[in-house]
């Protein structure tokens, strides 16, 4: 299943301290699966030769022949790879001085987004301008996607000036620290009590959280208060083949979705083996397709 140049390998790109990534790789190795970790230090010494789809119009966005990322130990990530699990927010290929950091990071991200896109199905989740690991879903987008999928979110309101706003929905107030909208996958800090200040605030109804579920294509691993088909529809609407969906119940007993993430934490029972088997199935399929 594996050979020269990393053919058929499952590659996990993750930060050195990503314990979930380490556990995934250990499990793959136990199952005799050719796999490797690519971390920031490896990527900093990698050589990219990216040939994005170009020339006359044509279908798809698959990269052209010759596209490859050469790793320092001679390994290659490219069309021969079985599956690439990208868990990083950045594409850390730039080796420039601090003065040019911002430009270099933007350039490297742009290169990484294009390169990952060119790998097509060989990447776990389609990369997105809002996340190389897959699109990040902010609160407003979550509400829109849930509406499309026919599931509820907890009512919320974001306001730019707590002191000037009319009384909004009842519920808890949380500190909203911009820039950016509050990320539903993060824990928010409760807003301190006291008179309203002229500052941004988020209010939501309290939700009793349930264990997150894992969506892998059409399959749901774990039990949620929300019907499985709706969660599958939600992940698909978000553009994710693999998603961790957080759900919960409001005080009045309504099941709601609270977050969708492209980078699963795999903490709930049964999710880890299901995820590893899924990676193997995906890699097998790309290997079969390459052989056909």
């Amino acid at each position, binding site marked *: 299943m594996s050979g020269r140049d990393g053919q058929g390998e499952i590659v996990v790109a993750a930060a050195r301290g990503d314990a979930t990534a380490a556990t995934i790789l250990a499990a793959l190795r136990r199952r005799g699966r050719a796999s490797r970790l690519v971390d920031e230090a490896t990527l900093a010494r990698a050589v990219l030769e990216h040939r994005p789809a170009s020339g006359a119009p044509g279908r798809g966005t698959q990269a052209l022949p010759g596209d490859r990322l050469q790793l320092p130990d001679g390994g290659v990530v490219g069309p021969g790879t079985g599956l690439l699990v990208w868990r990083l927010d950045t594409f850390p290929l730039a080796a420039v001085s601090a003065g040019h950091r911002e430009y270099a990071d933007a350039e490297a991200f742009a290169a990484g987004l294009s390169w990952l896109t060119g790998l097509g199905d060989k990447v776990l989740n389609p990369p997105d301008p809002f996340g190389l690991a897959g699109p990040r879903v902010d609160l407003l987008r979550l509400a829109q996607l849930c509406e499309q999928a026919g599931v509820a979110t907890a009512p919320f309101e974001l306001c730019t000036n707590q002191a000037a706003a*009319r009384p909004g929905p009842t519920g808890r107030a949380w500190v909203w620290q911009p820039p950016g909208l509050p990320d539903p996958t993060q824990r928010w800090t409760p807003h301190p009590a006291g008179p309203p200040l002229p500052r941004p605030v988020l209010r939501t109804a309290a939700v009793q959280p349930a264990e997150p579920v894992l969506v892998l294509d059409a399959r749901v691993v774990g039990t949620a208060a929300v019907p499985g088909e709706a969660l599958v529809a939600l992940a698909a609407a978000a553009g994710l083949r693999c998603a961790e969906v957080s759900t919960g119940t409001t005080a009045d007993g309504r099941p709601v979705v609270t977050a969708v993430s492209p980078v699963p934490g795999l903490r709930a029972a049964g999710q880890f083996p299901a995820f590893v088997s899924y990676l193997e199935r995906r890699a097998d399929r790309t290997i079969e397709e390459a052989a056909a």
Partner: protein
Amino acid sequence: MIVIIGTPAEDPVRRLVDAARAEGVEALVLDETAAADWNLRVGSGPEGRYARLAGADGEVDLAGATGLYLRLTAPGRTGPVPDPLEQDRHDAAIALAAGWADVAAMRVANRPRAMASNGSKPYQAALIRSFGLAVPPTLVTNDPAAVQGFWDQHGRLVYKSASGVRSIVHELTPARGADLARVRHLPTQFQRLLEGTNVRVHVVGAAVFACEIGAATIDYRYREGGEAATMRAVELPPAVAERCVAVAAALDLPFAGIDLLRDDDGNWWCFEVNPSPAYSCFEEPTGLPIAAALARWLAGEGE
């Protein structure tokens, strides 16, 4: 009513405001430079999503608008550093306006989520090609040997930024090529140098406005000591116009500035689709009625 978010003194915003007035379209303008004072609340509840702006005369329901024009340019601030809460309100207002623009059930020019495709030029180019316009052969690499091979293959190359950060497009000349080892520090985008006539196309919904550019430099936006570029309105071949509309629609950029080149063999190539076009630079010298078309489109007219 249409909502316009941007800096009123900036040309594209000013022209749209004037055009809306001339077309009899009511416009609510949110001044980006005063975003800290917006008093915006956006939420989702049993009655659906909502967006409301509080003003002196009560609240305006922004969801009642037919269209939204968003041109956030992050103008530099002058004067004393604002207090931290004011800065937070400003940042929150911008984030909320952009987040709402992504999900608002109305015509939006353009949704930030769609605009982001332009943050990676090679990524956007691959999409453009899949939607029907040719794009130049491209290599993104930090390998000097790969650049040399690509150079030998294509004869003449340009290099330019891959991200949304603006760069001047230059030819890779032998003098600049002597320093190729520098790409080792950062993946860089190289492209076959195309020769021909630059044509800038503005798409507004299903309407197309094209202008031809006469320029002495490769990147006509910079004269680099030479003559300034000249512009004249032109008609596109219908098949090219159709593809421009289709590409803009597929990228979810109903208002787009498409950079095309017609080469000496009559082939059409696309460099990029600008998601927040500074259309005023093209409207002013040619008289193409882009702002008026945009105002009418935002008001709900046409496709």
